[in-house]
């Protein structure tokens, strides 16, 4: 794998981009990181992801792979000699895919209701939805250290990037995730102890500042 060229197009606050960073780190892969200065999109990004025009995009030897969970699965399959991210058993794989899909369908949209709220009621609605989702995820986690069981894996990678946005959710929604969902926060702290995660996540306080900046530019504040 010595002469593999890997380029990651990303916007560092993206919870989806961090999935890819963590997966690359877990596999011990070298890659070139290129920051997209959103909302301005580079010609490379538009060329590599013409359908969605979104980050993250992983470019492997010139060929693009898009959609974060699909990229993580690709990384897991190509570099299958170490740190397996998905279970090998088809039924457990189906459970993992279902959980990651649930996170994708629900958490991002609910979170947006909080950070881009137009009024108190909107933020409150978003907060209720986010907390419901967190409770479901705590149920799925159960007493296990990670969603996959003993080992950090696909579902953990799918969710942990959202931690960068917790401070923004808490401040805009006026609540504490530690108080409402202590089990989830215990899982977060466990994940943050991993070097691969710690070096892949940006500062939640700076994410909140970016939220404020975008809110102002969109006339929400």
């Amino acid at each position, binding site marked *: 794998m010595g002469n593999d060229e890997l380029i990651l197009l990303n916007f560092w606050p993206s919870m989806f981009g961090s999935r890819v960073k963590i997966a690359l780190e877990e596999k011990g892969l070298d890659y070139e990181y290129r920051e997209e200065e959103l909302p301005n999109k580079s010609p490379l990004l538009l060329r590599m992801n013409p*359908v969605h025009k979104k980050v993250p995009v992983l470019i*492997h030897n010139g*060929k693009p*792979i*898009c*959609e974060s969970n*699909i*990229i993580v*699965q*690709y990384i897991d*399959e*190509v570099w299958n000699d170490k740190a397996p991210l998905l279970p090998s058993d*088809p*039924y457990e*794989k*189906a459970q993992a*895919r*279902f959980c990651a*899909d*649930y996170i994708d369908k629900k958490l991002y949209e609910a979170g947006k209701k909080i950070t881009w709220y137009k009024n108190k009621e909107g933020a409150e609605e978003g907060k209720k939805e986010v907390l419901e989702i967190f409770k*479901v995820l705590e149920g799925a986690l159960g007493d296990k250290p990670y969603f996959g069981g003993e080992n950090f894996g696909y579902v953990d990678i799918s969710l942990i990037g959202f931690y960068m946005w917790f401070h923004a959710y808490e401040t805009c929604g006026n609540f504490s995730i530690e108080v409402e969902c202590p089990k989830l926060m215990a899982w977060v702290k466990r994940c943050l102890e991993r070097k691969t995660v710690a070096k892949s996540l940006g500062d939640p306080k700076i994410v909140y500042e970016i939220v404020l900046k975008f809110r102002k530019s969109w006339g929400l504040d």
Partner: protein
Amino acid sequence: MPTDEQLLLLDLWVSPFSTRVKIALAEKGLSYETQEEDVLGGKSDLLLKSNPLYAKVPVLLHNGKPVVESTNIVYYIDETWPSPQLLPACSYGKSRARFWADFIDKKVFDAGSSIWKTKGEELEAAKKEFIDILKKLEGAMGDKDYFGGDKFGFVDVILIGLTTWFYVYEKYGGFKIEKECPKFAAWINRCKKRDSVAKNYVDPERTYEFVGMLRKMHGVE
């Protein structure tokens, strides 16, 4: 298939997502039982227990263990009974197939629903969006006979079931796919010749009647 394997599909005859799973099962030559769910009446205990989060069909129970979300089910079927393989063999090909399956799931059914649920200007906009989506999919297929290339494959399975509702969109939208996207229409006809598709393709007139009833319930008329 060993005789002690049990497959039960929780089904709704008109659901294009159920049709998708039935086609996948047929492609693999698998026998299964079905339990028709009356989703407009009341949902069975088995459905509510098997799919507590969404309470939706289809659900595939394999030896009593549930797999939910139709695309997830098709992945599971392909992995558990690998011959004939629906996903491409190489990792990059797999990532492309997953990308288009994800695109189809995010876009096609919702865009189609916007057609039969709306009137006037909203309907015209919905129609335009739907046709744009089909054109993007035509682009993905290129000059090949199938999305899988020369062979009917994963993306073909994911998409062909949804086309059972296209007659509904054509009637309410006042357009013909054959005229707007002839390549796409040719692909539908090509797929319908396959046994797995022909045996499971729900009569479009029956679907149209069903949606007529839904429209009344949604107060669209």
